[in-house]
């Protein structure tokens, strides 16, 4: 086995040093009859060539996003990732290091996380951010629980424009918080303000919404604050924040989102990187890991994990959450890509995404497809005649990934809606192909 350095002679010598006759003498604590001596009913080990061949055969059965016109978003976005990003995250010292518990020899990771926290805070317009969470959906659930702790209230009002799977995750994971989920209505507005009362810990609103609509957060924040509740704002496309007013400028108290769109590939939905930002005064109730600035014994600036007294390894059943990791490598990819972009690149990328989406919407409208949005960033909803899932399936058969039939995620939603996304990778030819596939 190419990964195992010990030889048979080494093993014999080691057993002798330990003072036992056979390896199974070290497994004597396994109850009688429960120690497996025969091999498992699984294939034998394979060479690197064989494994690569087998996995490659499996991979080739999938239609990759780059294989043809591609218009699927709905929480995961296909963007170009500069080659530098993937090269750097594969540096051994980043890829194969662990949680930076030993700060003196983990300054690379710790400084990256400090840069990440600052980038996320600035992008969202908030004061502080943590060092990432699993993904946007779980970050949203943690935000709801944090709001409940801060307000000591037990109810959350969740907008119908929040990604249906995020809504499911909030309902499942935010244990002990009663969820008032507004019905999902892609065409009409919703009267979220009427749902806010004195029991409400937070209002959860996504902008751009699942359907692509841009939402004014300021009036919702105001109403929430008046009732003593918090505004949790959600986004699934980080690139959007390069083009639209950040939630922090509109009064959001906790901002959560999916960071995949910057630096990270689609990978069928994971691993992704949850972004979590809030105000300074709430920092001790924030879940997740934090890198903080400090000094070393020589007075040099350095970084260390901080406020870990909120965390499970110290507080156990009194911890702010049970999370004991972050998406370190995905956060690194985000940070490097964001550094390559800078403000100039990010705003240009955002403008380009918006223009591609506008061009797509225009072409679809010209082809007779009804676009439901007045405003959008790079994603919008269209109505097609008949069963949207069948339309998408048929297009897929022609090599075009046309978007998401809403009914796949939300059984209660109308069956004729498709959420369509464009990015900087969308070409004019792609747009023409989509218009051909969906047009009347």
């Amino acid at each position, binding site marked *: 086995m190419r*990964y195992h350095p010990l030889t048979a002679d080494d093993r014999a010598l080691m057993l002798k*040093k330990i003072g036992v006759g056979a390896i199974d003498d*070290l*497994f004597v*604590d*396994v*109850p009688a009859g429960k120690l497996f001596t025969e091999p498992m009913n699984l*294939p*034998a080990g394979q060479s690197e060539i064989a*494994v690569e061949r087998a*996995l*490659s055969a*499996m991979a080739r*059965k*999938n239609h990759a*996003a780059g294989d043809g016109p591609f218009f699927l978003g709905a929480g*995961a976005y296909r963007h170009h990732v500069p080659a530098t990003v993937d090269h*750097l995250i594969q540096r051994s*010292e*980043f890829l*194969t*290091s*662990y949680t930076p*518990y*030993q*700060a003196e020899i983990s*300054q690379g990771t710790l400084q990256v996380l*400090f840069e990440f926290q600052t980038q996320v805070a*600035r992008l969202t317009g908030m*004061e502080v*951010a943590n060092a990432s969470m*699993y993904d946007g959906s779980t970050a949203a659930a943690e935000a709801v629980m944090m709001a409940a702790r801060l307000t000591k209230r037990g109810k959350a009002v969740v907008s119908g424009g929040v*990604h249906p799977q995020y809504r*499911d995750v909030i309902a*499942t994971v935010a*244990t002990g918080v009663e969820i008032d989920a507004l019905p999902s209505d892609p065409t009409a507005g919703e009267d979220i303000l009427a749902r806010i009362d004195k029991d409400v810990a937070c209002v959860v609103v996504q902008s751009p919404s699942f359907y692509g609509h841009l939402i004014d957060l300021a009036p919702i924040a105001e109403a929430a604050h008046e009732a003593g509740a918090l505004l949790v704002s959600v986004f699934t496309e980080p690139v959007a924040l390069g083009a639209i007013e950040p939630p922090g400028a509109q009064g959001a108290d906790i901002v959560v989102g*999916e960071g995949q769109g910057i630096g990270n590939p*689609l990978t*069928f*939905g*994971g*691993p992704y990187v949850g972004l979590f930002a809030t105000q300074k005064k709430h920092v001790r109730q924030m879940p997740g890991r934090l890198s903080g*600035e400090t000094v070393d014994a020589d007075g*040099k600036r350095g970084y260390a*994990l*901080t406020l870990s007294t909120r965390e499970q*390894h110290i507080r156990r*059943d009194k911890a702010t959450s*049970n*999370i004991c990791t972050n998406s370190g490598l995905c956060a690194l990819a985000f940070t*490097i890509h964001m550094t390559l*972009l*800078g403000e*100039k*690149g990010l705003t240009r990328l955002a403008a380009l995404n918006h223009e591609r989406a506008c061009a797509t919407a225009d072409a679809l409208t010209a082809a007779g497809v009804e676009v439901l*949005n007045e*405003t*959008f960033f790079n994603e919008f909803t269209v109505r097609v005649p008949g069963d949207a899932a069948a339309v998408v399936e048929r297009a897929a058969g022609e090599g075009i990934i046309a978007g998401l039939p809403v009914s796949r*995620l939300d*059984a209660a939603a109308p069956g004729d809606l498709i959420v369509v996304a464009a990015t900087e990778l969308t070409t004019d030819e792609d747009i023409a192909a989509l218009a051909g596939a969906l047009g009347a």
Partner: protein
Amino acid sequence: MTFTGNQALRIHEPLIFEVGHTEQTGVDLPDPAPHASRLGRHARKTPVGLPGLTEPETMRHYVRLSRQNYAIDLGLYPLGSCTMKHNPRLNEKAARMPGFGDIHPLQPLSTVPGALELMKTLSHWLLEMTDMKAVALSPKAGAQGELAGMMAIRAALKDRGEDRKTVLVPESAHGTNPATAAALGYRVEGVKAREDGTVSVEAVREKLSDDVAAIMLTNPNTCGLFEPEVAAIAEVIHEAGAYFYGDGANFNAIVGKAKPGALGVDAMHINLHKTFSTPHGGGGPGSGPVVLSERLAPYAPVPYFRGDTLVERTGDAEGEEMPFGRLTAFHGQMGMYVRAMAYMMSHGADGLKQASEDAVLAANYIKASLADLMSVSFPDRPAMHEVLFDERFLKGTGVTTLDFAKAMIDEGFHPMTMYFPLVVPGAMLIEPTESESLASLDLFIGSLRDLAMAAKRGDTERFTEAPRYSPRRRLDETRGARKPVLVYEAPEPAREAAE
């Protein structure tokens, strides 16, 4: 010496916020074509404040930062309970194949048969290794896998019309165990370990009542010992109508040797990143699929497989299925599934078993080689894949566990896990893994012997002044927590001028 001592490469790297500029960028993007904006009044009015660097500057910045990290590719990383083993690059290559890396989670399922095949194959391997009946792959990390398992237990109890409120958690458990139980509203009741570091069936029986929903038992436990009474504990737990949650963080010690299902476990998460070597990347991502016994099989979070069909929504479940909800958007950590699968296929049944045996062998070899100089906490039982020492051998030397750990850095090693588990004072938990050669183990043992003798001889400066050869000397972590600075703020212009 494993450290080169090349101080010329000890770099002070500023923050991007100090050297970058908002007008600078490292990407070439075309100008968008003229168009009518659909952003309406939502268009950004406030600047973001994000500095950029050119591509060469970005490369240098992050390569320099990387050089301030220790990593398993640099040397032995004996971080007990964290499992730092060799990360084969084949796993990385496979995960980056376009058919795995460049597929969207919501593509029509007809366009991703290979992805579903990989998930089904992985499920099959996990079930065969654990002798369990169902698997939910989606949990994003071990701690979320725990949450999934405990939620399945809660759902099963609810289905029986029972509202049990207590969860038993031995004191040697990972901190995530009590945090998970508490997050679900359970009262956490500790179970003391015996003198020998393991939990007795009597201690569990004493705590049992019809209010107990489950026990959360880590096995092998965090003292590095296999729980010899595990099957008997499972029996009394089941007799009391409760469930057995197994924390599978240390499953890597027993793959191919003992199957949790056969030991009576009802739910167990498997840290794919630990047992099947997906890279830790400075803290994550992890992946924590949860396997379920026959009695818990109907209670899994969506998405999961029933036969060859992917059940994506709770409403789609039929018959016996009682999914309790959804833990994450999409399908979980697909990128980690591919890496774990590559690792498993490379090893095969025999290789996986050999990995467990070699990890256990290496831990016991370290234990045997240091037992005369350092205090082994539980000398009477074989260590599993990790061995626990404590601070007794440092008594009277003026050297603490922390000092000892920091001195290891100067020897060119990452320190072991310190002060965990909490059951012994000044704990030092060492996990060498199966990746180390005998020469590597001997070098490590030699360094530790040298340090232990230096401490006993009174060479305290070597410890209290350590680390001396790292990118930073000892960091003031208390200061960091008292007045946390979590984001970069530019110095005030006035103060800057005065300085």
